[in-house]
């Protein structure tokens, strides 16, 4: 185990619909312990060999689940997260896209006084290659290794993981933190986890326009960084005021520009790739400079 998830992680699925079932099967193929799922009213039965429960609390009590993966559609997703937090689930990963901001503000407020870590929403999930996958990422792009990888983007994560893996740079844990404006584990918090993780040798940060999470991560690494880091910012060519697919990817006035983020990383001595293809080389160079 690197951070957040590993061999001891026991995963519950909330929302075992078409998408949930498909990915639960892929996760089991990968060796992830999928110990149960919630389907209100179906408690006591099974689906695809997965035991079903009426509530998260019952599922946790019966299975010892310490993580939950949420596919519940947007209108009920916040309630699903609050249920998992209430049941004391340590790690909650929310794939669902399109959750209202006010719902996430409520979830974030409850998170503050809980012991739960939330990844997402609107994210691909997280993977500790070779040990545990909680999410929808194609596992074949990831290899075990020492690169801790944080990303606000989904497909770009797969692309860059593939580039890293092909370059022989395996990953300790990859965390797809999600593309929404309010997320459970913002870039600086995810970076902090990897910075403190003994299994992580170098950190790759994939940010995008919108917000100032990358600036804060850069500040943190400038002050307390223990290992080399490389960054990439997507959306450098995006015009202000336009939402680029992700609800959180928007430049508002002079806030959230790629320029500001690139500058912050550069001032922290962290090289910024101008294309994903440059990342493996920059990581190698950074590791060599140590």
């Amino acid at each position, binding site marked *: 185990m690197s951070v957040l998830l590993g061999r001891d992680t026991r995963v519950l699925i909330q929302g075992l619909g078409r998408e949930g079932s498909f990915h639960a099967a892929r996760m089991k193929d990968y060796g992830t312990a999928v110990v149960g799922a919630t389907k209100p009213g179906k408690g006591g039965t099974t689906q695809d060999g997965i035991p079903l429960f009426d509530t998260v609390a019952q599922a946790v009590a019966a299975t010892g689940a310490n993580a939950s993966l949420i596919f519940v559609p*947007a*209108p009920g997703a916040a309630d699903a997260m609050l249920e998992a937090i209430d049941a004391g689930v340590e790690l909650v990963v929310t794939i669902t896209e*399109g959750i*209202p*901001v*006010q*719902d*996430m*503000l*409520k979830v*974030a*407020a*409850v998170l503050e006084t809980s012991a739960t870590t939330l990844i997402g929403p609107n994210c*691909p999930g997280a993977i500790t290659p070779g040990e545990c996958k909680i999410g*929808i*990422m*194609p596992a074949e*792009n990831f290899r075990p290794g020492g690169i801790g990888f944080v*990303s*606000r*983007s*989904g*497909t*770009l*994560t*797969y*692309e860059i993981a*593939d580039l890293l893996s092909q370059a022989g740079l395996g990953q300790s844990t990859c965390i797809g933190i999600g*593309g929404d*404006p*309010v997320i459970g584990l*913002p870039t600086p918090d995810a970076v902090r986890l990897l910075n403190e993780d003994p299994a992580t040798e170098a950190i790759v940060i*994939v940010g*995008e326009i*919108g*917000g*100032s*999470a990358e600036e*804060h991560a850069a500040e943190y690494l400038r002050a307390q960084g223990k290992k080399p880091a490389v960054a*990439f910012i*997507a*959306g*450098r*060519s*995006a*015009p202000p005021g*336009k*939402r*680029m*697919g*992700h*609800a*959180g*990817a928007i430049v508002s*006035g*002079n806030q959230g520009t790629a320029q500001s983020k690139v500058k912050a990383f550069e001032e922290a001595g962290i090289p910024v790739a*101008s*294309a*994903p*293809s440059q990342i493996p080389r920059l990581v190698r160079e950074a590791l060599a400079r140590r």
Partner: protein
Amino acid sequence: MKLHEYQAKQVLSRAGIPIPDGRLATSPEEAESAAKAIGAAVAVKAQVQVGGRGKAGGIKVTKTPAEAREAAKAILGMDLKGLRVDKVYVERAANVAAELYLGITLDRDRRRPVVMLSTVGGMDIEEVAASTPERIARGWPSPLLGLLPFAARALAFEARVPEPQRDAVVDIAQRLFAVYRSTDAMLVEINPLFVQKDGSVLAGDAKLDIDDNALFRQKELAALKEVSKDEEAEEKARALGFSYVQLDGDVGIIGNGAGLVMGTLDAVRNAGGRAANFLDVGGGAKEAVVKAALEIVLANQRVKSVLINIFGGITRGDEVAKGILAVTAQHPPRVPLVIRLSGTEAAAGRKLLEGAPLVSKETMDDAAREAVRLAAEGRVKAPATRVKR
């Protein structure tokens, strides 16, 4: 989803926030009778969602109903920063002694709403923040508790709201916070918040931007949605289940995943070109979606080449190929297509595309360079298209 001023003011008024007497008009005659009904000097205000309406001539203050008619005649049909004015709001002119600012939006870093109050009203709050940041008081209410009376009062003291208006402003701030929550707002703003010569306080302008993700439960507000011509393609894409944003370059873009598409846009810029759009087909797009996406991109007459960048995860390369073939099979595309297909079923996809009229590249960077090169060729070949714009 942004509301018009008159719509936003109606929402505020229902929440007990004082607004000037006003009526909507879509013709000079309606404006005249609105002014008559109000029975005082009125402001005739263009209802378009752009900043700086006043400076651009979209607001006129008039003394008589006849003047209001003339003002409406001048404003209706006007082009304000690319948007045609087709309604005006006729509103009793305030007797302004001072202008405040009051707004609530999301503070992403704190994961809380931020309430901003300033006695520097009537100008862009970002300018105030840049020039005199100490003049803006900020508070971050807990979303579970709302804007508590003590916190609203503290803001008024910090912003140095004059004593005679303090209670009214504190009350309006709490009501505005209730609006922020009950309407699922991303932004709600009263700028300026007028202090009239008689000491009363009322909303001079109002902005209300609703979270698109919450429209499913904001049915009444969602019904107010108007799609401008500029946004038609974006709306059409949304209806088809993917995400499209029109940009001003000539390399059409299709990809899967917002980050990858942003990265593709950047790769095009790295190669010296400019993207014509952002288009994310989403995860697991099937043939039909890819076909529709390609049609929307090609419908943009500025487009000189199209770059399709797919990193298959849930999305399968063969489905993408089928979608492309469904378009190219009918008739050869009007501009060259460049594709980079990687990940799940990429080989199958590439096999299906053999012989199709397109260029296939191994990497995103190579594909971007090729698409940019082809777009440049297209510009040379067809300069007429550019002139037509």
